[in-house]
């Protein structure tokens, strides 16, 4: 059994380093959809979280509780909801985007928005405690403070962006439901790993796993280094 794993690992490394076109097409699609979803989620989630972080409004606590609860949202439920919206009989069925990369992006974006918003809310709210008096004294309204705080916390929030990307890239359930795992069209790393493992093709599954982990590790290492640099530079 151990020798099987080692043999699979060696083959996997050969696939990765040898530039196997099948493997790299899956990797490239994965990165494309996950990055798009992470960017879209940040476009919505960062301002939303920051706004909740600085504003006082009726029901704010309830909104925060709901936002935090959404962190544990089962991905298959999101997948199912997106499926129902995009299926032929659904309200957005006429768009014809079910089982396309666009559907995967939508599902991943919906999954990542709560993560980005909840974490941005926490970071910005903490910073607002420190900045509030000074910014208010300069005539800055809470709404105007949102872009200021997002910019000032940019290196910290990069971690949030990467977390969002990591969540999107590692998603299986929702992606399987709305993407359909169609070879060459909607097959991404996670769904391919699930499929290849079930077929017993461990080398390809392991190869994809190695790439997935490497990408996530490299991005996080980069973010960590950037954050360390920013602390040295900006205090």
């Amino acid at each position, binding site marked *: 059994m151990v020798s099987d794993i080692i043999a699979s690992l060696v083959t996997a490394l050969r696939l990765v380093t040898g530039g196997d076109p099948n493997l790299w097409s899956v990797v490239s699609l994965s990165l494309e959809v996950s990055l798009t979803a992470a960017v879209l989620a940040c476009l919505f989630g960062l301002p939303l979280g920051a706004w909740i972080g600085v504003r006082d409004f009726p029901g704010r606590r309830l909104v925060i509780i709901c936002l935090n609860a959404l962190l544990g949202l089962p991905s298959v439920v999101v997948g199912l909801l997106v499926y129902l919206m995009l299926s032929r009989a659904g309200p957005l069925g006429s768009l014809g985007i079910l089982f396309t990369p666009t559907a995967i992006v939508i599902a991943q974006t919906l999954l990542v928005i709560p993560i980005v918003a909840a974490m941005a809310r926490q970071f910005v709210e903490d910073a607002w405690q*420190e*900045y509030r*008096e*000074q*910014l*208010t*004294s*300069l*005539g*800055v309204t809470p709404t*105007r403070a949102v872009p*200021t705080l997002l910019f*000032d916390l940019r290196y910290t929030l990069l971690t949030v962006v990467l977390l969002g990307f990591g969540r999107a890239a590692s998603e299986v359930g929702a992606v399987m439901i709305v993407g359909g795992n169609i070879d060459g069209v909607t097959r991404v790393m996670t769904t391919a790993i699930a499929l290849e493992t079930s077929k017993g093709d461990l080398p390809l599954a392991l190869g994809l796993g190695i790439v997935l982990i490497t990408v996530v590790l490299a991005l996080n290492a980069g973010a960590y280094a950037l954050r360390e640099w*920013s602390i040295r*530079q*900006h*205090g």
Partner: protein
Amino acid sequence: MVDGMFPLEAHALQVRVGGHEAIKGIDLNLDGRGRIVVLGANGAGKSVLLRTLHGLIAPTSGTIRWAGSDRRPASQAMVFQRPVMLRRPALANIEYALVVNGTSQTEAELRAREAIERVGLTQLGARQARALSGGEQQRLALARAWALRPRLLYLDEPTASLDPGAAAEVEHIVGRIHAAGTAVVMTTHNLGLARRFADEIVFLHEGRITERTPADRFFNEPASNEARWYLQGELPWNTASPAI
């Protein structure tokens, strides 16, 4: 003189902070002339008074009127004991304050350079503001406030966290800001600074003004027992008034 800021009239001002009545019915008029230093023991309500006048804390009751209007004018600024700097270069911190107050970017850059030069930080304009020393950050905070061309500047213990050299520089800059036409209201525990700087002393005790007198008279013949005890360092500790 009616110019949108003065006379500043606070009437029957009461302020509760965190369930504690920090200001207990204050009447205060400012005509924009002279340098006013607010003195009082810890918890007397000095900082709360300044924050309330500046609009950072809403009064529980009472009124504040600026030149007869209850609309707070933009022509006032405040510098805190520990200024908060944005994570950007020193010059950009001043530019930011100007731009959010409606100055164009080009004009803001020009005025920021002038302001930073006035406080002697020209060489540090490109350096990250948070990497500056405490004294430099306080001078930068003064430059930021000065660049806004306020009619009235509140200073909340601006030298409290500084070494004597840095404190002297801050005192010098504040004097120049006042000489340039800005009214100054400052709180401090530094009696030497108060004696050198103030034209008038407002003395607070347990949320009330116990006296407002010219500085010379205050230091030579304080009218209230509380002020006398305070100057002698013998003001009894008031357990009902936590430090604010």
